[in-house]
């Protein structure tokens, strides 16, 4: 049985990651993202599961990079959505997706007001006709 502290870890990592407080980075292994802390690091990745959908795995490693423990979303059946969101968040930060989008949006500039439609020409009356 997985240590219930992992549950707290998932929630805290997700909440801090959403606020941009966790520096996830891509690794040499495709689809594996890591975040380092002063003594330990965590890695998250996905693998095809038995039922055709993805399984999400969170690993805890020591300061030598040795994996100490790992959990799968199946260890906490109610945490699938959180593990998936954490993976997507880690991927987005690790690949610099947020930064890229912000940069492009800034380059595109703020929304400009739509040009005003030309007003209809005034109706011509008999007084306007010179002859």
């Amino acid at each position: 049985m997985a240590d219930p502290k992992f549950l707290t870890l998932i929630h805290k990592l997700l909440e801090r990651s959403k606020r941009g407080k966790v520096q996830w980075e891509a690794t040499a292994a495709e689809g594996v993202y890591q975040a380092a802390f002063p003594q330990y690091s965590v890695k998250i990745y996905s693998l095809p599961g038995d039922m055709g959908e993805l399984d999400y795995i969170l690993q805890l490693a020591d300061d030598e990079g040795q994996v100490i423990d790992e959990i799968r979303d199946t260890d906490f059946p109610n945490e699938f959505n959180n593990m998936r969101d954490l993976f997507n968040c880690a991927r987005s930060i690790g690949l610099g997706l947020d930064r890229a989008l912000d940069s492009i949006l800034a380059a595109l500039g703020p929304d400009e007001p739509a040009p005003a439609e030309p007003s209809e020409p005034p109706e011509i009356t008999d007084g306007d006709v010179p002859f």
Partner: protein
Amino acid sequence: MDGGRLIFWAAVASIAGVAVSVIGFVVTIIGVWRSRSAAEQAKAAAREAREGILELETIQDFTAVTTIMEEIKRLHRASAWAVLPDRYTALRKLLGAILAGNPDAPDGQKALLVGSINQFRVMENAVERALADRTAPDVVGLNKIVSQKLDKLNEVLSTFRLKP
């Protein structure tokens, strides 16, 4: 000598004795304080010298780390996969030595070292797997990671060099 005069001189002698005792006590206290202060100064000097040596070792280790990382990038470009695992191991050992030798480093620097150690372990596993599968690892991707780490480690190295 009459009795009154004797009592007077006895009192004077007694007061003088107390005064001498007090002065002696103060002198002793000052002596102890001075010797303690000297011992503490010597201890502080020894500690500073030890910290200086450790910082020097850290700078030397950092320099070796950057040299190995540059070498790793060159070996990636040359596709010298067979010799790379040893270089990754040597690099991780040096990073581990820097981490162990600087327990009071800021958390951000320690996290950078831990993250770098982990990155090069993942890299080593990826290269070992590619060797076993007879596939070619992604040189551009690997060198991008090495360069990013190199830049950040160089920033930390410069903070060590700037220390007074």
